[in-house]
């Protein structure tokens, strides 16, 4: 982990309200594992605290972040042009751990795909990928996952399966009865809740990448907690004990 200066190589829109940011770092970030994140000092514009972003990809000193414009920080970031200097603290947090015994399934909702893409890439086609979003516009987020033949659900039916991604996963899971399956997921709370409802009777292992408003990103402030089943210490830090948690340890 280090705080590294970098410069924006490119920062472009890839779907309405979604951008892909590439930064050339001035020195290597160290080993990056799927599910880890960075805290980024957003250039200018009165953004005080850093912002957390999942590491979408990292290779040869180039860090790639896929983000959705949701507030002041991401709005400022989306306006930052090429060559803008940028500070990046990372890699941070606990990552996805993959067991060779299980058949991996990756489930992502909307921009949640940014959190699981590094895992998809690492699994090199061994995982089934389920992606859910509102309309066909967001399917563009999957451009790097196309070789892995993702299953896609859109709420309005404008692309792929009409409905939500958990309904689509349910159909697929029926065909995997009796097999050792493990699920890796990132997406909106409602999606994670309905995923939990679907797989709870089968107690399928599931790792979930969670998001929370953060200040420090390294476990200093205890600002980004999630409630867990641990009776002794129910609030765990998303930045330190997470962002990847065992779904069955989380209190949703």
């Amino acid at each position, binding site marked *: *982990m*280090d*705080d590294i200066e970098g410069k924006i190589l490119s920062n472009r829109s890839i779907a309405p309200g979604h951008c892909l940011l590439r930064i050339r770092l001035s020195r290597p970030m160290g080993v990056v594992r799927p599910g880890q994140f960075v805290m980024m*000092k957003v250039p200018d514009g*009165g*953004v*005080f*605290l*850093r912002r957390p972003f999942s590491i979408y990809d990292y290779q040869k000193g180039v860090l790639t972040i896929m983000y959705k414009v949701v507030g*002041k920080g991401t709005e400022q970031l989306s306006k930052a042009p090429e060559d803008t200097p940028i500070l990046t*603290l990372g890699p941070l947090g606990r990552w996805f751990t993959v067991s060779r015994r299980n058949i991996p399934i990756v489930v992502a909702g909307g921009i949640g795909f940014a959190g699981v893409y590094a895992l998809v890439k690492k699994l090199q086609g061994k995982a089934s990928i389920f992606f859910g979003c509102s309309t066909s516009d967001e399917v563009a987020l999957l451009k790097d996952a196309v070789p892995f033949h993702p299953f896609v659900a859109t709420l309005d039916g404008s692309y792929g399966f009409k409905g939500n991604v958990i309904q689509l996963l349910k159909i697929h899971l029926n065909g995997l009865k009796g097999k050792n399956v493990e699920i890796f997921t990132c997406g909106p709370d409602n999606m994670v809740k309905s995923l939990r409802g679907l797989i709870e009777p089968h107690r399928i292992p599931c790792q979930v990448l969670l998001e*929370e*408003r*953060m*200040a*420090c990103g*390294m*476990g*200093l*402030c*205890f*600002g*980004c*907690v*999630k*409630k867990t089943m641990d009776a*002794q*210490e*129910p*609030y765990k830090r998303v930045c*330190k004990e997470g962002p990847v948690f065992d779904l069955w340890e989380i209190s949703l």
Partner: protein
Amino acid sequence: MGNISIKLFGKNLRNPVFNASGTLGYGIEIEPLWGVETLGAYVTKGLSIKPHHGNPTPRVWEERHGMINSIGLQNVGVDRFFDAYFPFFKRKKTPIIVNFFGFTEDEYIACAEKIKPDRFIVALEMNLSCPNIKAGGISFGKEPDMVFDIVKKVKAVTEIPLFAKLTPEVKNIVDIARAACEAGADGLTLINTMPAAGFDVKKKNIPLKGGLSGPVLKPIALRAVHECSKAVPVPIIGVGGIMDAMDAISFFMAGARAIQIGTATFVDPYAIPKIIKGVADYLDANGHKKIDDIAGIANNV
């Protein structure tokens, strides 16, 4: 880098720069970037007699020049801190200041009693911003009489030097400072966060009420440090919105014996080592041999 060590309650500290309670985890979290031995002293996360879970999320909210937090004093409890974390500071030869709190007088007293003197403990720091459950939730630190009472009772059960950390949400902080000192406080930490609210215009709601920190707090803290340092004879630790070495210098000149850095670490995780170096560089560049040369030299215009 020049010598910026200070002596506090008979203990030699490497420098006068500490972290603010609750802004450097349990100390171990910063290890990947720099070690706690960099600090003059590590100030613990606020400890209570029993472990405390804290508040649900959201716990943080950003403002233009600061942040609001409502962590709710989550901590592992005083026993576990000394079992699990204190040995780490001893190994690192880093003195600590133990910040503690309670929701009743008895909890404050029990917590202070638990902490036994040790050569690596410089002082206790009692957080007086906590709500007093028996007094209907009014904070312990708001009225001089209440401050006198609680400080006197805590002082009676400990041999460790005691800092009273005061809330700025009072009519006259000098009156509170005097009350704390008359009750036996050996030092003051000024100030704690200021009560504030965040507002989400998109959602038309107030997502968070909590304590405001960051640069927006600096002028309030500086005034408190300056006025209290003229009024009481005990050492003052200045805290509130210190973002860089020049901010730190201004607190020393205003009358602080030491300073604490909080929110700055979230903006720049290297803020503390940078400030330590910057303070030393300032002294060197201006021909001062020690911090005391600039302590309290600020003039009123």
